[in-house]
């Protein structure tokens, strides 16, 4: 049994990503959408926190939201996978439930 967690706010603005990562287990996945995509690239000050998470959890980022913020050509953090909306839908179906951290 595993959960897909959705994060939509920048971790520089809100603590939702911290709060999510402090509670989920290694079977769970996280997808960064909307403003949360700003930590998907390597080189940010959030880098090491996210690397710790990718060590044992699956992290995804939504490509259209990366593109909208001019970040599509940056190199993603190791262990992060970019998906489009259809990939997002597939993730929803592959996990047992979806938890949006608002």
């Amino acid at each position, binding site marked *: 049994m595993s959960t897909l967690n959705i994060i939509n706010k920048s971790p520089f603005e809100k603590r939702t990503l911290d709060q999510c990562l402090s509670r989920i*287990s290694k079977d769970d996945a996280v997808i960064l959408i909307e403003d949360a995509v700003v930590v998907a690239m390597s080189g940010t000050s959030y880098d090491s926190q996210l690397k710790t998470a990718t060590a044992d959890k699956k992290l995804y980022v939504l490509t259209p939201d990366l593109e909208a913020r001019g970040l599509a050509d940056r190199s993603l953090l190791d262990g992060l996978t970019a998906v489009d909306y259809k990939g997002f839908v597939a993730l929803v179906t592959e996990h047992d439930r979806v938890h949006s*951290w608002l």
Partner: protein
Amino acid sequence: MEEEYSGGVEKKFIYINRRVPHGTAYAIESLETVLIGAAFDQDVSMLFIDDGVFQLKKDQNTESIEFKNFSKAYRALEMYDVEKLYVETESLQERGLSADDLLVGVEMIDRARVNELIDQQDVVLSF
């Protein structure tokens, strides 16, 4: 509406409450959803983590800001057979609160157990 489901599917619903009450409407709207949802005879849990623990704080007095004081309604949940209320211990502690500050009896759970609880659910509603 209840009849539609009397012999039907029973699912496990969890309401996850993470916001300070009154600054936004999420607290009251979560409560309204739980009360309406009670008619569907599902398995309902309410979880209070992060700032959501303030929703259960005793002595809320909304007179000066002219808001409805809905906090007493948490005590009525029992009458609707909503009896599984969980509060995360660490969230309370970080905010300088203890179980004595809460206006209803709840089950305290450690942060490590939060995911375990969510892992048993069919539907997650977050407020």
